[in-house]
């Protein structure tokens, strides 16, 4: 039983690594279709990864060892998060290793090193990206914390496995106002943290409007592959959090093969639905001016605060 648990952990990491490029590609494909284009097939990012791993690395002569180490730290910290987030089964064998706060701060670890790597070559674009990324990350933080508070309030724990099992046991919680408000708040934060419109345009070529892309302009080859993969993985993680913390059905609570298969299917469907929503949003909205982003995040903070107060009053 215990061994199965650990095997499942590893299987889940592999699944996340496998699904992540597909999810990013799916969103891109759907957006292309919304632009009346044929677009690249959803599996395009896999080809990109393979190509990048086959290319050489060109490094700036100003960059230091930090620039070389950062991709590994970013990738490792993001992969570690997938050990903690219940994707197909809850609770995970390693559920006690980390809770939602650990997830948030591990992701911050990646952001921290990405921003430093942006500053390392000494270009103006890298610095600009780093500054913006950290600004957005810092302002998004309180919303995440409050959303966690509101989830913890109804589940009685911040450990993800416990939140999911509590909700499965007590489905009424998932439609409580506190929950729905927290979902809305976390959705806005997801857009901001994963660099989607209206905060950041993942398809931009104009350096002055970039956030995420500006930091990685200097990266190439395998380093770029690791960073891109990690950012797709981050998208997958945030989607999974939205999906499984707020609509937990489908996730397996036993190690029964049938339940697990169903859980994988459910996960893919949920990710696809969220990807569809994001594609619709990205088609509909324009990118916000950088200095309007705090207003958006401020709104999400208010939503999260309302979520906590309402879970408080209705408890």
């Amino acid at each position, binding site marked *: 039983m215990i061994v199965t648990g650990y095997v499942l952990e590893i299987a889940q990491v592999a699944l996340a690594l496998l699904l992540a490029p597909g999810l990013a590609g799916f969103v891109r494909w759907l957006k292309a279709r919304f632009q009346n284009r044929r677009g690249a097939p959803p599996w395009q990012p896999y080809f990109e990864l393979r190509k990048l791993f*086959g290319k*050489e690395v*060109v490094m700036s002569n100003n960059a230091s060892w930090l620039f070389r180490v950062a991709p590994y730290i970013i990738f490792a910290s993001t992969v570690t998060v997938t050990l903690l987030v219940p994707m197909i089964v809850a609770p995970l064998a390693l559920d006690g290793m980390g809770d939602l706060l650990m997830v948030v701060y591990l992701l911050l670890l990646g952001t921290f090193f990405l921003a430093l790597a942006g500053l390392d070559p000494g*270009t103006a674009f890298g610095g600009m990206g780093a500054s*913006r990324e950290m600004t957005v990350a810092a*302002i998004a933080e309180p919303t995440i914390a409050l959303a966690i508070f509101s989830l913890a309030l109804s589940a009685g724990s911040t450990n993800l496995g416990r939140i999911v099992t509590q909700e499965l046991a007590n489905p009424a919680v998932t439609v409580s106002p506190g929950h729905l408000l927290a979902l809305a708040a976390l959705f806005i934060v997801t857009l901001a943290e994963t660099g989607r419109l209206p905060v950041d345009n993942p398809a931009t070529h104009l350096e002055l409007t970039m956030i995420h892309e500006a930091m990685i302009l200097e990266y190439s080859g395998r380093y770029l592959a690791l960073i891109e993969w990690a950012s797709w993985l981050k998208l997958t993680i945030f989607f999974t959090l939205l999906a499984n913390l707020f609509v937990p059905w489908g996730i397996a609570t036993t190690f029964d093969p049938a339940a697990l298969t169903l859980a994988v299917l459910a996960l893919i469907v949920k990710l696809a639905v969220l990807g569809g929503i994001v594609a619709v949003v990205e088609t509909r909205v324009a990118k916000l001016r950088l200095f309007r982003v705090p207003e958006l995040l401020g709104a999400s903070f208010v939503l999260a605060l309302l979520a906590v107060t309402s879970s408080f009053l209705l*408890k």
Partner: protein
Amino acid sequence: MTWLLVVMIAGYGIGAVGALTLGRSLFVRAAATSGAIIGAGAAFILGSANLLSGQTLTIQISDILPITGFALRLDGLGAFFLVVIGLLGVPVALYSFGYSAAYEGRYSLRLIGAMLNGLLLTLSLQVMADNALTFLLLWETMSLSAYWLVVTEHDQPGTLQAGGWYIAMTHIGFAALVAMFLLLSGGDAMSTSFAAMRANALTLAPLARDAVFLLALFGFGSKAGVVPLHVWLPMAHPVAPSHVSALMSGVVIKMGIYGLLRVTLDLLGGGPAWWGALVLAVGTVTALLGVLYALMEHDLKRLLAFHSVENIGIILIGIGAGLIFRSYGLMALATLGFIGGLYHTINHASFKGLLFLGAGSVLHATGTRNMEEMGGLIKRMPWTALFFLIGAAAISALPPLNGFVSEWLVFQALLGGFNIPVPEVAVAFPLAVGMLALTSGLAAACFVKAFGISFLAIPRSHEAEHAHEAPLSMRIGMAILALACIALGLAPFSVVPLLGGVLAGLGGLPDTRSVFTLDLMVQAPAGFAQVSPTWIGLGLLILLALIPLVMRLMHVNRKRRVSDTWGCGRIGQTPRMEYTATSFAEPLRRVFAELYRPTKELSIDFHPESKYFVKSIKYSSRITPLFDRVLYDPLLRLIQRISRQVRRIQTGSLHLYLMYVAVILILLLIAARWF
């Protein structure tokens, strides 16, 4: 254990005396360093031994002080702070050996060495003081020795002014402490021992207890650097020698925390919920304002000083939450809050000490504290850069380092807020959660700036270009603290139960040693949540080893070529093209413009022939901190106005002064007659 105490005092004593009496400056430095290492090492061992065994050590020397004598007693709380002092004292002493070499011939090495030992001695004894007189005496000696160390570089601009602010604020606080002890002892000179006060506190009227608490918060708050009493901190820390800054930030201001805990929790035995709510509110404001002003700061040491303000705020959030829970009888949660606060205390001592030592090495190498003149140091001072990076990641609460663990504990305490039966109080907790999260997010942003601008990219000045690595003693000093940051982050499961033991019995808190232990994990009460930084750290390490391995197995292209930085094809890259610290902080400055109220000045110098040609553009922008604006500036103006009035009666004429004396004398005689 008494012999350890003797070794400790003897070590500091030898260090101080040796520094004062030896001849050659090398010997002076060696004596001061070795004495301080022996003393601080003994303090560390004494504290740890006490924590592990749980015994209390009591020593009473009646003849030194009048009335109650010189009384020392080392209990768990004191022992914990003693460990903090020792943990920081040893590396700081080692570091000072290399650092003060540059002072030779400019400032008195003897004074620095002796005062360093004196400061460490008074700090180490401070946490053992067992009566009011001993406490106040040591408090004052500590403040004064710290003052002498702060004004070491007395000929530098701003140093004496900073010293002045420090000594003024600390004495305002001291006055509050005297009043507080007077109230606590009930005016009876014989009952100034802490044991008597503990008994006396129970019989005090509620109003008097409130007054004691408020005086303690004010008096100790001024030492700890609580907003709005923090103004001296960002002035005094930067001008002090860097190892002194580390000591000030790491332990001297922590004495404020120690005092607050000692009085509110131990002597008063806790109080009503509004005490905790006040501490929580003050802590939240302190944390947020501290980090917000740190973001705007481009003097590396001032930036760190503002972060000390922030971290004191985080510690107070934990303590405030603990006090609130205690007043509602939620003892397990209360302990969690206090443990969070205490854990953050030792964590802050280690990472802030490390960061100040790192900043000192940079100052040592480049001669500047201005981040805009640094850059590229990671290649010139690789060790310092690595240590500073560890400190920066730790203070940004990134797992698996120590900052994360203590912030997690504080978060968990705050998340327990819904257990409080009174909604008005409970609603404060989510707000505190939000503000704490904002604080830690901003801190991460600030340290990306601090490390990124100072250490990465290309040097922005000649000095940075020719920087050199710090000498060995300084590097070892930093290495010890870096290891402490890692160890405290990876092994919280062994620290948390110890802290539970420290708190057991204080203010009626239960012994929670068993509640919080779990193998390699940290757990909030009632199984609310658990994390294991140990396993996460291990997982990260395994992955970091595994990724390159897998990549090699998959035949990933391993070629690497070094080329020019990509700058859209422009010919050369100069430091002027880099992002600066100011520009890095610009988005946040706009976001929080309401608070900063920046003033901008733009002057353009045109060519005399045509205004289409610009000769030079000068842009300057300044922000005045909120409390300078609304509190201190008006206050100083008022004092100046009063002083001007007073000056009128002070004419310099001896006859007039004699007349004043006579008049006062007569008035006093009449008054004495009257009453």
